[in-house]
């Protein structure tokens, strides 16, 4: 077996454990490459049957339009149920404060919407496409990550995870976050997308885009959600997105890569990590991700 076959077999096994152990699981679907790869793995795990879980999208309202179109198309093609919950609704209902600043990220606010949707549907397991190679706090997380009734992660109290035996037994109110592609790297995902000939939103491939130049030198795609002023420099560049979080916190990278092959070549030469190149939110503090995870972030 090739190494991709091994990673695939492991991920399918994990997805089936979710189906076998939980009553109301959900697959958190962001429209990015990792969650798209997860839907392919779910097809392999459950076809010719239906997925034993809906796809759930937390729409921050700052998404790229290309991603939302792709999301709806994919759900229709798969013939699977898609649930969408909007952060804008949460902000209104809970009277939350909209983030300010030039690049007002709703990234932290989506935790509220996520916890609300978990409660609304009584989800006992949420599958996500997080990978351990993304970030140092993620590198510490188990494949089955038990969260308390507030969605909180406590790294000191993680369950031992032995062999490939996954313990998803929880008490009422708790839920488990499950990461079937924990052991994949960014390059593994791209190699898999290529091997499986998986379609992706066009935003992943090189295109001309108006961008704002950030003080760090990073390029942020121009969107209506940014609060710019006269000092901001707007440029037009050939870019693509290496990861597709919100338009307010995900930078583009300059690239001429128009095919998956090109992207893989890009990656082999890249000297900057995926999150380092693209994320604004992780740089707020050294423990940005850990702090958010402790509070219930995915």
């Amino acid at each position: 077996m090739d190494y991709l076959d091994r990673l695939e077999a492991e991920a399918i096994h994990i997805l089936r454990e979710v189906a076998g152990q939980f009553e109301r699981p959900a697959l958190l679907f962001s429209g990015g490459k990792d969650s798209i790869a997860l839907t392919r793995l779910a097809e392999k795990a459950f076809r010719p049957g239906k997925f034993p879980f809906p796809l759930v999208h937390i729409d921050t309202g700052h998404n790229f339009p290309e991603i939302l179109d792709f999301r709806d198309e994919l759900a229709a093609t798969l013939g699977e149920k898609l649930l969408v919950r909007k952060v804008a609704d949460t902000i209104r209902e809970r009277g939350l404060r909209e983030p300010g600043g030039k690049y007002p990220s709703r990234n932290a606010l989506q935790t509220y919407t996520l916890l609300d949707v978990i409660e609304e549907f009584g989800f006992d397991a949420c599958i996500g496409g997080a990978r351990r190679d993304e970030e140092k706090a993620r590198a510490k997380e188990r494949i089955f990550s038990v969260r308390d009734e507030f969605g909180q992660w406590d790294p000191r109290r993680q369950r031992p995870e032995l062999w490939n035996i996954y313990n998803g037994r929880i008490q009422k109110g708790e839920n488990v976050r499950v990461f079937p592609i924990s052991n994949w790297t960014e390059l593994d995902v791209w190699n898999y997308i290529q091997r499986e000939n998986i379609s992706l939103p066009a935003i992943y491939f090189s295109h001309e885009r108006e961008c704002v130049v950030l003080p760090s030198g990073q390029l942020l795609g121009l969107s209506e959600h940014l609060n710019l002023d006269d000092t901001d420099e707007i440029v037009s560049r050939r870019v693509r997105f290496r990861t597709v979080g919100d338009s307010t916190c995900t930078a583009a990278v300059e690239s001429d890569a128009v095919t998956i092959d090109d992207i893989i070549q890009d990656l082999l030469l890249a000297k900057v990590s995926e999150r380092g190149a693209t994320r604004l939110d992780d740089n707020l503090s050294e423990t940005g991700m850990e702090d958010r995870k402790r509070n219930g972030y995915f």
Partner: protein
Amino acid sequence: MGLSPAPASFFNFLKYPFSHFHIFHIQRITKMDILRFITCGSVDDGKSTLIGRLLYDSDSVSLDVLATLEKRRAGSGDVDLALLTDGLKAEREQGITIDVAHKYFTTPRRKFIITDAPGHVQYTRNMVTGASNADLAIVLVDARQGVIEQTRRHTLLASLVGIRHFVLAVNKMDLVGYEERVFRQIVADYQLIAGRLHLPEVVAIPLSALQGDNVVRPSRHLPWYTGPSLLDHLERVPAEADANPHEPRFQVQYVIRPQTEELPDYRAYAGRIQSGRYRAGERVRILPSGLETVLEAIELNQQEVASAEAPQSVVLRLRDDVDVSRGDSIVPLSAPPALTRELEATLCWMDERPLKAGRKLLIQHHAAVVKAAVTTIVDRTNVATFERVAADEAQLNDIVRVRLRTARPLVADTYRDNRATGAFILVEEQTGATLAAGLITATDPEAFAAPAENPLAFSI
């Protein structure tokens, strides 16, 4: 055209010359295998630094991550490579590893999954967590300290879960003047442990994680050493995952039943082949019910295949409409596993509250979950001497041999015969806490009386 990193201003505090990063794995790599290894040893032996060095010297650390290390560089001191793996706030505060970190890197030969396990005695259970999935263990010893109790404890645990390849990494050679005599003495001391535990393979390598001697590149400080560097060895050692000599075993995880117009009667059993190979058309038995039928078809990625093998995740269809549910096993008629309600097992006890005989709990044996009682605590292994001593309870991190009785029959093999079907975990019914790792040592009550000093018990 390469992917452009952020402009230089983003990294203007970065002092590393670009020439350091010679790119040696530019070509596409598809046909390669995976080696999973664990690093173990005591606190301050330098495990996290060793992994940091391995990643750094193999050019597997991206510039932005190095930049965050630079920011933390204290005064004019060296970069702290341990920060590459110690990802939790509390870990960086205390300078120790609390939980397992997984790191990934690739060379032209293989993909590596590194499990960086904590050395602190308090977190032994996390070390077992990491070891249970590893092909190889790197046991670090501080050249100034030599072999200590934690070396023995971790070697015992790694050997207990069936790791076959061991590297004795004698670290901090720079602090003992790179003296061959020091290295030889530690190797001799460790050989006693390896002998007692019947370790199949030990390769000893002198190195300095801090200075980078012999981790990725051979060192001029160690002219008397002619063996491989650590990375050389890791690239060459066979990945045991591929060797699969066991009898065929398959357990049902999930029943696929679409009940659609096109497929009104389709019913199939999804699961992962735990060991061996299955062939379409062979006769099989369902356990625990004992019903016999024929394996009608094997589906892989929605396509029928003539045969499939571990560790593939597949779908099995049976000829007869028999009652099969999650947790049941489908096995060929030849060489069936034991079907038993009495087990003898070695436990690594992982709960703060001690285990006493009579305790009722759950056995999770992959997809099968059954109630069980610990009827007897047979003995406890002294991790310093490897002797088995009488015991009537198990404390946190103890290794004990117990007998268990289950409420329903379990389909099981001994761990020595089959790492997949010989392993289980113990779970507390009320809280769901994972209490112990279990390795089945006997499934036949007649074998329970085996002499306590049976050395093979540690040699999987």
